């Protein structure tokens, strides 16, 4: 046993004991809570032309406000994209203004705690701070949670998964009542675009496994596990090429848009169109549609379009 193993093992032991004390093996129960009947008639709300906060304020009203999703004393887990050590105008991470606004809405609705994390690609501390998200979360009264060590992740089974049948998922998500996904829309070198479903890559520990074993199928598989209660797609600064990290601000177009849906496939299909790609060109959207995660065909859906 080398030094690293020793630390890991002792940490795992400690975490497990801690986990057992605080929530003794009840992960399964959380699925029940996530399926709920929503009062809103809309499948998708699309809004553009405003600032991130103003657009969210307006769009969430169409769903009956955040109260429709967050009940008193519930724990909320917010998953933005904080993957890269870049500033907000580079369009590499979710807009911190939007993150802040969403947390404020959750707390107003009576949330007990709002946790925010992402398993980053660049050094996590630099990502959290340079993306502006750490400050936004603290200012809004949320809690930013690290996600860079394996000890935060718990083994789960993904029953509907074809390739990805098990994964290690961050305990904060497993422990939360409400799951809100806030991805940013941007180009992606291997999956064409990254939106809601691809954003869930940041809730697992071993991303390498996805890359080795048919990336698109794994993205679709993971989206069957714990469907977010709400997906808020940030399309304010949109990185049109060189994604997902981007090279400079020249890659970014200011689109001032936002899409909100309770279904990831719907959100991704609409966002792809907004980006200028047909959903059918993106394999993981097609696979997820075929697996019944949601509909990529937007024609039959009830869409609210707002231009500010």
């Amino acid at each position: 046993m080398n030094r690293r193993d020793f630390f890991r093992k002792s940490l795992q032991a400690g975490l497990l004991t801690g986990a057992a004390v605080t929530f003794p093996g009840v992960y399964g129960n959380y699925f029940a809570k996530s399926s709920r009947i929503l009062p809103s008639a809309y499948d998708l709300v699309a809004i553009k032309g405003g600032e991130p906060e103003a657009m969210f304020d307006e769009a969430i009203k169409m769903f009956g406000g955040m109260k429709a999703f967050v009940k008193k004393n519930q724990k909320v887990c917010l998953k933005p994209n904080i993957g890269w050590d870049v500033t907000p105008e580079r369009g590499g991470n979710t807009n911190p203004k939007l993150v802040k606004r969403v947390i404020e809405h959750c707390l107003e609705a009576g949330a007990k705690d709002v946790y925010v994390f992402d398993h980053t690609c660049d050094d996590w501390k630099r990502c959290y701070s340079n993306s502006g998200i750490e400050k936004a979360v603290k200012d809004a009264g949320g809690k930013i949670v690290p996600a860079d060590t394996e000890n935060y992740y718990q083994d789960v089974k993904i029953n509907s998964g074809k390739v990805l049948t098990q994964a290690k998922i961050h305990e904060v998500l497993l422990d939360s009542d409400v799951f809100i996904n806030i991805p940013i829309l941007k180009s992606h070198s291997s999956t064409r675009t990254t939106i809601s479903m691809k954003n869930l890559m940041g809730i697992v520990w071993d991303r390498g496994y996805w890359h080795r074993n048919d990336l698109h199928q794994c993205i679709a598989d993971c989206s069957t596990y714990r469907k977010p209660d709400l997906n808020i797609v940030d399309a304010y600064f949109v990185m049109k090429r060189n994604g997902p990290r981007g090279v400079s601000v020249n890659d970014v177009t200011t689109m001032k848009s936002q899409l909100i849906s309770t279904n990831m496939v719907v959100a991704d299909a609409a966002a792809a169109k907004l980006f200028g790609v047909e959903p059918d060109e993106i394999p993981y959207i097609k696979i997820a549609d075929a697996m019944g995660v949601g509909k990529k065909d937007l024609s039959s859906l009830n869409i609210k379009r707002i231009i500010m």
Partner: protein
Amino acid sequence: MSGSLLRNIRIIVSIIFIVPTTFLFADIFGLIPPFISEKILFLQFVPSTLKFIAAISFGATGFVIVLLLTLMFGRIYCSSICPLGFLQDVVNWFSKKFKRKKKSGFEFLKEQKILRIVLLIIPILFFVFGSVTLINFLDPYSMYGRFAGNFFRPVLVGTNNLAAIIFNSFKLYSVYPYDLKAFNIYPFIITVTSFVVVVFLSWEMGRLYCNTICPVGTLLGYISKFSFFKIIIKQEDCLSCGICSKECKASCIDSENKTVDMSRCVACFDCITSCPTDGIVYSYSIKKQPSIQTSNQSVIDNSKRNFIVKSSLYIFSLSTIAAQVKKKIVVTKPSMIPIFRKSAVSPPGSISVERFNSKCTACHLCISACPTQVLQPSFLEYGFTGMMQPRMDNIASFCNFECKICGDVCPTGAILPIDLEKKKLTQIGKAKFVRDNCIVQTQKTDCGACSEHCPTKAVHMIPFEKNLFIPETRDDYCIGCGACEFACPTKPHKAIYVEGNRVHQTAKKNVEEKKQEKINYKEEFPF
């Protein structure tokens, strides 16, 4: 001034130096910014000398101050500023507590003059001919750096992680565990070995390392022979009782002949406090004192010489065996083609591998400061002369595009500070794509992890069969940060790796014009 006051001042000053110096190497939180660490290490003799030579920088004149201090007060550097000196004093203090019952104190030893001069001259000659290997292994500051980095740092990591476990179990995430991303067994063994040697010597013989082996000690020692203030035995007050001699951890007081060998005295002032009659004092001396007599110069200790020769031979032979295990990077379908790096990658700011190898004393401060832990100690990746020096380990991590802290903290100038814009174009190596290991080729599925991580898009994706995309590398834009290699998920061999540049080059800036896209915010949605 009374002896006990001097001694107390010495102890307080040494604590003022040792605490921040140690924390610098153990700091896992990145609390100390480079401009402060520079000040903390300003007076460290070897790094400051090397930086002065490397950078012709007048900001690195700490060693001149040390020389002047020595000329004035004797080897106070060794007792107060040198971190290894402090460590030995601590070991010595414990040994005294432990051994008090059995036998008491030290005794006067003859000076091993030839050995001392050889151990001073040879490292300097090696340095002149472009190798810092011997300085690496002998410089007290660098040794202490490695001890602190290898021993105290993990202790801090362990304590922090224990605290993190407790906090996390209460769902508090403000304290988080720190992951050590790599463990390098051979560099660790080398560090432990030198630690054992230093501790053993100081446990048994006090400051023998400082007085016989340490080149800095020898250099400052011969200067302190001419120092203004000296330890002087007052012929008239001395009773030749020998108490001071037994107290002297430097074994340099010959109480029978009433002489003090100032070249070995580390100015600890223990003797003065021990003297029952004020027969030994710290005082200015204009006249030549009898203590400077060098009567033992013709005595050569052959056993010690033999030891040095034999042990160096042993290290050489060990290294040839170990050379056979070096550089091999050890996935669904396993990747079949092993990677052999021709050259290890040296950090940005080191200008060339050769220059780096000839300037770095392997104190590992950059390793402690590196936020991504891409810098790891080498064993034989650079070859024998670069042993223990840091290299870019892209299996452990990769170089953050927006970071240049290694150059900012480097106290020897082996890694020169460069501004961020220059760093972003400094090509330390080039990404090499091994197509037959790549998942897109072997499994016909999308991957692109390398291109995702690439900060300059030197690795970009080009169309491949069946709507797939496969990586392509562009040397012009590549800076060798290793993000692609780190991210590459193939096992056991990577499908992309960084081949080090022997001499660093300048990459081309990837300047793509902004797309002229007119956005009409009043336009309807495309769905």
